[in-house]
């Protein structure tokens, strides 16, 4: 039996924060008790003092790249899981753009087997929509679902063929898989390396217009209306995208959406100086887009925050800006960047936590995401006041491609528990070092 005492417990499902003690037994939350009542009569094997800290349901990241199989020099499922638990995550949903692509049962099962061996957090594979992510033939959704996939996506690519996307949505719904769409018109974005705007003009870099994202979001909304099948829009980055999704939701179309912390924390001026760690797809947009993303989060147009954790080694990043790979790591900066939104008054603490917990859990259909008696004890204890400089030495991910290196951040995870087991602790790590 574990006793987490004196913490402020965040209930994203009820929109409140409550001082409660949590009693964990056999991997489950057995009791939630008002503070000062519970007495340890020898039955407690471990007491966790959460005084001055907040206790939240374990973060669920529904959009990460774990790179295994195929790109183990960037990340493995074990190192990605380690970065995850250090960042406050208890579950990750990993995208299929591995090598080979996760487009069949064998790869899905391999991923789950590697996750079991790592034994740190829960891994939910997202399978490819099309074989080899080539946009030509559907994968075997039923077989993939049985193997353990929770959704389908060709993330990194957009399914260009609208008829194929329609069939994918219809078929995925039958099998209970969420379709996650990476929205990008590749003809419009071809050759682009950053947001198309004043900064790309001044830097002489080829731009990616906002329209390349917005056109495909509008298509997915039309297909969701046509088929009645839910679609989830990955990494929303523009004001126009937020407008389209808001209107679709008002019309009752089954669309959900996510954004990533960098889209509300940075704008395209971060690219100045040609820093490849500010290169991602979709690109960092304008300050007006950043403001619209925040409003979208506030209004619930954007349901989820996900990191789009995309590890790349120096081989892909320490090169000419044009040639550098898109993407940044995000698991270990999610907590401070999210708390910054709360301090700024964009979201209340429970609203912010909801976007990392019950909302992604509901969209993926994996359950959990709240702190309730009888639920799995997937919990994260956060020190929201800790101030520190985010250094390369702090990073557990195998890759170090973050634009936040050297930046002052506030708030961080101190302990992560999965199924009642403490899988990571800041203090333990620091004393053992």
């Amino acid at each position, binding site marked *: 039996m574990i006793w987490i005492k004196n913490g402020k417990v965040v209930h994203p499902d009820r929109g409140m924060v409550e001082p409660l003690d949590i009693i964990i037994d056999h991997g489950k939350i057995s009791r939630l008790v008002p503070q000062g009542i519970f007495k340890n009569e020898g039955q407690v094997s471990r007491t966790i003092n959460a005084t001055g800290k907040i206790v939240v349901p374990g973060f669920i990241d529904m959009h990460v790249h774990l790179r295994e199989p195929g790109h183990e020099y960037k990340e493995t499922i074990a190192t990605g899981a380690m970065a995850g638990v250090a960042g406050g995550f208890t579950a990750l949903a990993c995208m299929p753009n591995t090598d080979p692509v996760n487009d069949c049962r064998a790869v899905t099962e391999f991923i789950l087997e590697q996750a079991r061996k790592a034994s740190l957090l829960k891994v939910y594979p997202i399978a490819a929509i099309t074989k080899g992510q080539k946009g030509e033939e559907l994968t075997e959704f039923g077989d993939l679902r049985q193997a353990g996939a929770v959704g389908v996506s060709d993330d990194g690519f957009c399914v260009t063929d609208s008829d194929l996307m329609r069939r994918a949505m219809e078929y995925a719904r039958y099998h209970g898989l969420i379709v996650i769409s990476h929205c990008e018109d590749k003809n419009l974005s071809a050759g682009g390396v950053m947001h198309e*705007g004043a900064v790309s*003009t*001044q830097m*002489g870099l080829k*731009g990616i217009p906002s329209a390349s994202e917005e056109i495909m979001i509008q298509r997915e909304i039309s297909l969701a209306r046509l088929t009645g099948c839910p679609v989830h829009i990955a990494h929303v980055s523009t004001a126009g995208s937020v407008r389209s999704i808001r209107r679709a939701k008002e019309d009752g179309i089954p669309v959900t959406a996510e954004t990533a912390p960098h889209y509300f924390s940075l704008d395209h001026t971060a690219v100045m100086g*040609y820093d490849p760690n500010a290169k991602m797809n979709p690109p960092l947009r304008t300050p007006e887009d950043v403001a619209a993303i925040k409003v979208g989060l506030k209004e619930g147009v954007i349901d989820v925050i996900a990191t789009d954790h995309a590890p790349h080694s120096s081989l892909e990043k320490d*090169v000419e*800006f*044009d040639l550098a790979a898109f993407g940044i790591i995000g698991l270990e900066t999610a907590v401070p960047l999210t708390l910054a939104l709360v301090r700024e008054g964009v979201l209340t603490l429970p609203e912010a936590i909801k976007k990392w917990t019950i909302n992604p859990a509901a969209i993926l259909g994996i359950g959990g995401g709240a702190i309730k008696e009888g639920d799995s004890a997937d919990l994260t204890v956060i020190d929201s006041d800790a101030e520190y400089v985010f250094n390369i030495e702090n990073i557990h991910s195998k890759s170090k491609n973050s634009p936040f290196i050297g930046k002052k951040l506030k708030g961080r995870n101190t302990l992560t528990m999965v199924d009642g087991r403490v899988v990571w602790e800041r203090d333990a790590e620091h004393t053992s070092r």
Partner: protein
Amino acid sequence: MVMFNHKHLVSIKQLSVEDIYTILDAAESLKEISGRDIKKVPILRGKNVVLFFNEPSTRTRTSFEIAAKRLSADVVGFSTKGSSTTKGETLIDTVRNIQAMSPDLIVMRHYSSGVPYMLARKIDIGIINAGDGINEHPTQALLDLYTIREKKGRIEGLKVVIIGDIEHSRVARSEIYALTKLGAQVTLSGPPTMMPVQAESMGVQVMYHPGEAIQGQDVIILLRIQMERHSKCLFPGLREYSSFFGMNKEILKYIKEGAIIMHPGPVNRGVEASPDVMDGPFSVVLDQVANGVAVRMALLCLFMGGNRD
């Protein structure tokens, strides 16, 4: 001694107005060397310049080589075709290899925007940007400033129009930063498909129609149509381009008395301008080339410590 404290020439943006005039004045004092019978002075004797070009260049490379040799520096060329990564060596490794041979300066041309910024962060020897992707070509802008000052007597207060493929022109970006910094008024003209988005954010005005744009301008800079950089469909064809955006006798009726026409070269004759315009009285294209040597001599002196010691 003149104050000049830059290790690299990455961008026009890094230079102050004083820096720019320091370079132009140095060029002016060095220009007469090229008119001598024995065109060599020992200013940079014992210094080593590497010309590292990974994109084709005739003019800029030759100009730098002649400039360095007139100053008695030793010049070594280092060319790669396309990306060095295709050979398994990264650009940084290549440049570190060059650095290990202890040259005093690298003059660098690269097809990818921003490369000089990246290298300046990573290596110890000075770099002069001889063109990076579609971003900047600072030495071309400086030689154009020199030519404008030589022909018009000043730069501040002049009206300058740049016509053509602005989006894909590193010359245009450097010219815009340099001219606006020195107080000239810059107008951009050309087909909308070749105009970068939010071009006005660079402190210029945009007038698409070249016939309107050239009116009242002191300087007209034509840009090369860079067929090799166009992915697709930016304009329907050269014939269409030359008839709507090219300079010809017809359009020259609108030109201001005493205006000059410039072109960074190489010229697509009959496209950006008809032959009679290129060879006509307004054109200063060959003066630009001649001045290029003087300006690059000045830069080599200033950046290789000729004046810093």
